[in-house]
């Protein structure tokens, strides 16, 4: 009796977890609203089923063997204390995981190339570029085409590919909108590209997913997907009603601390690239990294970006041109 409880309890709990995850719109990852998240959900279910092919028989076999061969008076099951090897059996259980892993590996390779974050999505519409910058501890979004800027809030038109360019001013973060698709790191000195798209109207949860220090938990943001028309009128209203983000305003924003949602009708031109290139020094040398490219040499704008707690000189340089697909499209 007790022995069967040992297996029942974990099984029930696992079952509970699985059942729970099958339903409910709280399960953001399993309730995607865009093509990227949709493919990732499919992939997750493929892996679950492939794993279950091994998992379920092994659990049943374990329970059976433990029950059948328990040391009890009158147990008539076979007892062969010196039986230690069977080439046939061992070949079988080397082969089973090899086959499953081979299938899974094939699927994985296909999806890895299909879902490469920097790969443009197929669509009749032109992608919209939005730049996301992780600051301590808020997200700054700049819309280079529309010329507006927001904090902890993104609005996007539905059915339109969004080309996010992602960076961080200081600590490394990760940019994650679970219902649209998987995350990408936000790294200082790097401009990462992540294509996402929303197929349905709605407001989606976004967050930083890599620890950035004290008020990391405040780095959540809303993603609102609207119709094209609503998107255009929202841009217009921000342009006409919100204040502009100035250089000084940006310096203020960079100060450590959390923030509510904010809207700006304009922002300093090339702000995102300035953040990315801020560690390219006056002498302009760029560390050779993944096929270095030379320049463009940017002088550091004013004295304005003294990251106060840093007590090294800023004479160095580095534009971490990590890999070719990230920086130049």
């Amino acid at each position, binding site marked *: 009796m007790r022995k069967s409880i040992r297996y029942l309890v974990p099984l029930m709990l696992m079952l*509970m977890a699985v059942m729970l995850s099958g339903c409910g719109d709280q399960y953001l990852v399993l309730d995607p609203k865009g093509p990227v998240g949709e493919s990732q959900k499919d992939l997750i279910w493929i*892996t679950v089923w492939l794993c279950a092919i091994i998992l379920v028989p092994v659990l049943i076999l374990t329970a059976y063997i433990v029950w059948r061969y328990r040391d009890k008076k009158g147990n008539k099951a076979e007892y062969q*204390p010196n039986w230690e090897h069977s080439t046939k059996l061992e070949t079988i259980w080397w082969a089973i995981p090899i086959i499953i892993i081979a299938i899974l590996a094939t699927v994985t*390779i296909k999806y890895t190339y299909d879902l490469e974050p920097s790969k443009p999505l197929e669509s009749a519409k032109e992608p919209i570029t939005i730049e996301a910058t992780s600051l301590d501890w808020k997200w700054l979004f700049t819309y280079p085409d529309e010329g507006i800027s927001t904090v902890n809030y993104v609005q996007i038109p539905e059915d339109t590919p969004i080309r996010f360019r992602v960076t961080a001013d200081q600590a490394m973060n990760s940019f994650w909108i679970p219902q649209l698709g998987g995350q990408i790191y936000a790294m200082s000195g790097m401009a990462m590209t992540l294509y996402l798209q929303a197929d349905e109207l709605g407001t989606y949860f976004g967050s930083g997913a890599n620890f950035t220090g004290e008020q990391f938990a405040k780095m959540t943001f809303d993603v609102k997907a609207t119709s094209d028309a609503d998107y255009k009128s929202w841009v217009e209203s921000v342009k006409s009603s919100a204040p502009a983000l100035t250089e000084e305003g940006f310096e203020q924003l960079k100060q450590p601390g959390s923030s509510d949602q904010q809207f700006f009708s304009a922002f300093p031109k090339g702000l995102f690239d300035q953040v990315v290139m801020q560690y390219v020094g006056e002498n302009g040398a760029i560390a050779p990294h993944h096929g270095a490219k030379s320049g463009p040499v940017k002088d550091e704008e004013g004295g304005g970006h003294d990251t106060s707690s840093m007590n090294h000189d800023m004479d*160095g340089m580095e534009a971490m041109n990590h890999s070719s697909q990230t920086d130049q499209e």
Partner: protein
Amino acid sequence: MFKDFMDFMLNDFFITGDPLILGAQVSIGLSMVAIVIALTYFKKWRWLWTEWLTTVDHKKIGIMYVIAALLMLFRGGVDALLIRTQLALPNLEFLHAGHYNAIFTTHGVIMILFMAMPLMFGLFNIVVPLQIGARDVAYPYLNSLSFWLFFFGAMLFNVSFVIGGSPDAGWLAYPPLSELSGSPGLGQDFYIWGIQISGIGSLASGINFVVTILKMRAPGMKLMQMPMFTWSVLSSSITIMFAFPILTVTLFLLFIDRYLGAHFFTLDGGGNPMMYINLIWMWGHPEVYIVILPAFGVFSDVVSTFSKKKLFGYKSMVFALMSISFFSFFTWAHHFFTMGSGADVNAFFAITTMLIAIPTGVKVFNWLFTMFRGRITFTQPMLWTLAFIPCFVVGGMTGVMLSVAPADFQFHNSYFLIAHFHQVLIGGVVFGYFAGLYYWWPKMFGFKLHDGLGKWAFWLWNIGFYVCFMPQYALGLMGMTRRFNEYNFDMGWQPLNVVSTIGAFIMGLAFIFQVWQIAHSIKFLKKEKSGDAWGDGRTLEWSIPSPAPMYNFARLPEVSSSDAWWEEKQRLANGGEPKPLAPLEPIHMPRNSGIPFIMSVFFFIAGFGFVWHWTWMLVPGLIGVGCCLLARSFDYDTDYYIPVDEIERTEAALKGVR
């Protein structure tokens, strides 16, 4: 002057103003006073020094490792309960953000480096020489040094909680957050030096056990006749030898960045934080296999002992162990698929990661078929082993799910990941080491642990584990990210977080049962009469009295098969003649030495000086270390022989006990 000093002590040196930390300071102070009083009152100072602090006996060093690890399990466990309490309800203000960050950081570091590692080395020390028929490890003095370096490294790390401030940049301390720009405080320096000092000890232990196993086996014992635990120690130790130097170098570079203003991992000056992330995981991934492989070894020995049957597929098992330790060096980038390294890199590391599932799966089948056609008795070590199998299989499956790179974009850094690695680390490593502790406890101390209380602890651990971590898989799919110190009510994360917290407290209760179990078993001590406590022992450690005499084997055994002790018992039971006893010979033994302890104290002093940038302190510390090295170099009186008549007396006394 005095006022300045007091200002410094109260504002910078000691952490003040937090009731939790004040409580810790007071209780640390009181318990230290209590220990000093007790040692003086019972006149135990000399005993402590000669029997423990200076010992080079692997069995005693092993016991000290185990004690230290259990204390650290307590500290890390309290950290875990604080984390879970903070997360039980939305926007709870139980811990403020900075404090929460410090606690999850120390929880991770302590559980991996100062709990799992020493518990593992404890088992290595207690078991390996006995299993291979040796009288000590290859380098007993180095072994003692390893322990004390670990101990003082751990103390240096732990002291940051009350002095100077805890590290709070995550257990692997990614730059730029862990650089001066992100963490100007002292916590990160305590982190670097605590880990560096104990890391030297770990590396030395790895080397020590590789040499021990390769050179000190009993006459006749071929590699392919070694007990499976010894094999797992060999594979784990080889992995240590290749992985720990990477950790040492990485943290040293971070130290140079912070101490001398270099730019290895900074944002400016040509530094590259991504380099650190690569390097730390080149150590970090093998590290998790370093701790899991010996657990596999424990399970292999336990399964075969309590199924009263030979281990199934010995050669497969050895091949699986060695291939896991080999492949563990080629999977590190799966910890950051989201770094955007491109599809080529991600596909490569996804596949190398999946490959590890193959030998691991084979091991599970071999354990199952060891039980198949056996006779299973449900002793405490066997219970932990049986709980391990389903738990680890599920944890392994979620690991395979995480290895699928594009799917990992959705799992990464979420509670799904947290649930996965706790499932393999608790279900695999902790259950494995518990199985090992219960299994070899009679060999260590000469008595078994109480069965009833042990079963309570077992069930509470298991129920607590599933209640705590199964909801976390779901929370991950709900988008809950690790290291959030608070969340909003409208996310719908609250119910499962409450369940998870309850599970954590059930595990806390289980730990209390284990402490009670040990105390109860000591109070109502039932001395183990035979050396073969379980009656079904298969390997050499069960052929000698418990606890083993200081020289372990009066006569070195001759070995001609695996399961040497089981075969010998079978031979005698079938009417075989007892082997004639060879005449006793004087036994060559290493002398105790105080130098490892003193040298580690100097390491602690130097580390403390480095943390505070106190040249007046770090220089004498380093000089002290140098002097200890010199003193050892010119110490020629390092060994002695136990004369035959003393061996005869000891053996006769032990026979009397038996």
